């Protein structure tokens, strides 16, 4: 597809996100999955293993022991049920945000790749770049006065943040989906809607699913920031720990966030591995 702002290849796209984004977006640097189903299965299992390893650090006994062993003194640790509660709320906020983000991102991606709306492409590119450049914590801070204390500013920040990889992923998926097949479909007399349904979407689906995975992991990792605005997430123990100089709380919150991100990534890798 010539003459348009080219999208960087998937790997560098993910890589370029990290430096200017919040630190938690390290999740986007996960190795780009190889094409083979076997490679994805192994990567998925690795992620699940990392999730289990991170979850071990959340156990009150383990967290307390590690903090003490690091010479930080004996600190109280949260019991597991408190963390489970934050974890569930964290997962819920993520899901509530990724749903609309997926809808907006994929729909907009489809819209700007329609031949009739080609002139919207540069604008969409600029918007997603801008959405990505603003750190979520800033969105949370800006939305806080309007949306108030609680999960709403966090959800808004996550939606804005996650639209980007989804929109870009959808556009890239559709544009790289066999131009020959698309041309043939058009020449055979399929309407644009039929070309989309019969050719473009089925071919783009694996790449869109991949973008969805990246967005979900991004959202899981970033949702912790929401604790600043009163959203009950796994960031909450981190904030409390920072305020009270309790490193065990911080370790528990960080490890639990990581465990959840690894879990989401591992499960999606295994779920999507059947794709060609």
């Amino acid at each position, binding site marked *: 597809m010539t003459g348009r702002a080219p999208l960087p290849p998937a790997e560098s796209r993910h890589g370029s996100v990290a430096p200017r984004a919040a630190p938690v977006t390290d999740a986007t640097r996960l190795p780009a999955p190889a094409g083979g189903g076997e490679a994805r299965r192994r990567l998925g299992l690795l992620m699940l293993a990392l999730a289990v390893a991170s979850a071990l650090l959340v156990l009150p006994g383990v967290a307390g022991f590690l903090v003490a062993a690091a010479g930080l003194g004996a600190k109280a640790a949260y019991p597991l049920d408190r963390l489970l509660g934050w974890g569930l709320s964290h997962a819920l906020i993520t899901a509530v945000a990724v749903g609309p983000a997926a809808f907006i991102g994929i729909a907009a991606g489809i819209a700007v790749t329609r031949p009739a709306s080609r002139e919207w492409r540069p604008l969409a590119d600029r918007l997603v770049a801008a959405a990505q450049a603003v750190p979520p914590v800033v969105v949370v801070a800006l939305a806080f006065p309007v949306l108030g204390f609680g999960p709403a500013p966090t959800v808004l920040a996550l939606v804005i943040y996650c639209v980007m990889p989804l929109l870009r992923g959808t556009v890239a998926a559709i544009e790289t989906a066999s131009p*020959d097949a698309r041309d043939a479909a*058009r*020449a055979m*007399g399929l309407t644009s809607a039929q070309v989309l349904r*019969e*050719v473009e979407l*089925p*071919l783009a689906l694996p790449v869109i699913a991949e973008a969805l995975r990246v967005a979900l992991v991004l959202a899981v990792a970033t949702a912790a920031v929401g604790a600043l605005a009163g959203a009950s997430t796994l960031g909450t123990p981190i904030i409390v720990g920072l305020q009270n100089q309790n490193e065990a709380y911080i370790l528990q919150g960080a490890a639990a966030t990581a465990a959840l991100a690894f879990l989401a990534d591992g499960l999606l890798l295994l779920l999507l591995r059947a794709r*060609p």
Partner: protein
Amino acid sequence: MSGADPNGSGPAAVRVSGADPERSHPAAVRVSGPDPDGSSPAAVRLEGVSVAFGGVMALEDVDLAVEAGDLAVLVGPSGSGKSTLLRCVNRLVDPVRGRVRVRGRDIAGMEPAALRRSIGYVIQSVGLFPHRTVAQNIATVPRILGWPKARVGERVAALLALVRLEPELAGRRPAELSGGQAQRVGLARALAADPDILLMDEPFGAVDPIVRRTLRTELRRIHAETGKTILLVTHDPVEALELATRLVVLREGRVVAAGRPVDLTDAAGDAFVRDLFGGDTMALHRLRFTPVSAVMEPGLVDAPAIAPDATLREALARMIALRVTRLSVAGAAGPVGSLALDALVERHR
């Protein structure tokens, strides 16, 4: 069907239309303007068609008539506008000036998708849908047209047979096909809804020379069996001569010559056309237009045999290969005459 066929149109007996367009449609020779008498309309007619891409003229003032049953080959160097001309016929490209008529109807007012569904199209890269099986690929247009499932199934089976693909291939994905098989599937898919007009843009461009030759023979056979009107684009002059019942030579967006291959390759013709078809060796290409039976002499000789419906090109090749200057002409019923090298040289058209 082999090289025995002098002009690629096949013996009249197997033609669905029952007629050889080269002989029964002398009108097809003319580079036509508007239909003067309103008689049966040409399958495809271009009247003063010009196409511009960003201010550059891709086609300029093209007049062309392709009669029903023709295998019209558009030939010319790259950039001559031949693909653009083809794409005008199903509105993949809209002209800035002029009119395109398909089956007598001006297509400017027709809905593009409906028009395209009524015309088969084989693109150069085949463009099979990688996520669909061979059968699903072939069934695309019939399914969209809402044919009953059973009829679609029958049609797919019939088309696989027509393009000589094993029925077992029906369940394969395009990635599992050879280049030649993919081309055949592309052709079957284009023919699926039984369009009377077929557009082919460099259909054999992506396969090796041997497969190419086989596919050309197959296309001539299919053209003869189905009687479709075919417009085919190629940059290969030899392919054009081998396939065409009607040749259209393009250069820089203009039709420089159109007519029967045997007429266009006349030594007295246009210099560009002569160069395109091999310059001084064009006479060798012309040998394919005359059958042995047209120049043979009575009287039997003891010599290697050749069929009466073989072309002079094959006869000459045979003589050279066997280092003889005389062949015995023998049909299924035995020898019928002889062909001498000097007769071949002196009497061919």
